[in-house]
């Protein structure tokens, strides 16, 4: 599912940003883009048809303390070295781009295919961006 793929990529980037605060300048725009993707996909995909959740507004009585990690989202291990952390995210983006292109190919609606192809291209851009070497003596830019 495109939504689940986007969400798990976003989770990984956020986990990385939380662990490596010095990467905020690089990661913030990437987080913003994926948040937009997730928002649009959540609107586009009818609630029932995705495996991610039953997003019923009904009050299910489980005030879970562990927030985003429970629903089948595997815990993401952030590499200790910033450069390695970025490289791993870059690989994630490449995989996301590939899977989203596949979703775009099979999408029944033309407008939805266009949207997915654009998201795949966005992920491909991130893959390139995150693969760039950090400036030595990272000044956080």
């Amino acid at each position, binding site marked *: 599912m495109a939504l689940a793929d986007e969400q798990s990529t976003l989770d990984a980037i956020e986990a990385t940003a939380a662990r490596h605060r010095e990467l905020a300048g690089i990661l913030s*725009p*990437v987080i*913003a*883009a994926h948040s*937009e*993707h997730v928002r*649009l996909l959540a609107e586009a995909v009818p609630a029932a048809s995705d495996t991610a959740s039953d997003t019923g507004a009904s009050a299910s009585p489980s005030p879970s303390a562990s927030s985003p990690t429970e629903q089948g989202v595997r815990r993401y291990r952030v590499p200790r070295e910033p450069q390695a952390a970025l490289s791993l995210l870059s690989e994630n983006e490449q995989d996301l*781009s590939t899977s989203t*292109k596949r979703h*775009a*190919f099979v999408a029944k609606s*033309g*407008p939805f*295919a*266009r*949207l997915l*192809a*654009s*998201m*795949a*291209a*966005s992920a*491909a*851009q*991130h893959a*390139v*961006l995150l693969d760039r070497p950090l400036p030595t003596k990272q000044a956080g830019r």
Partner: protein
Amino acid sequence: MKPLEALQSALAGEHAAVYVYGVIGGRVSLSSESALSSQVRTAYTLHRGRRDQLIAMVRAVDEEPVASEVSYQLPNQASTPGQLTAAALELELRCMAVYADLVGSTSWANRQWAIDALNDAAVRELGFGGSPEAFPGIAEL
């Protein structure tokens, strides 16, 4: 948009891209701007290939491919390296919009072609100083 209409406008975009890249390529100094020069040459070759593929795709549905104009307006004065780079960036952005429309208007092999072209242009754009976007090729988002 009908599939044929989308193919023809993608082809018209490629005719313009081939022309403008030809002009840019003639103005980039091979000695002092060798990186830009090789990027432009690669882009020129690639867009020429795309143009020829689109001609074949239009012919495959028994239609007459749109012809190239005699000349095209350059996006700017295109004399300094900065202007030449900006002109190349502008071309890729225009092509991305056309490819995204093509994704939404076609299916099967033609859609896959457009998905890959959009992806490639989104990455190429970064090499010409473009910034990553949340929705490459989709102006209204």
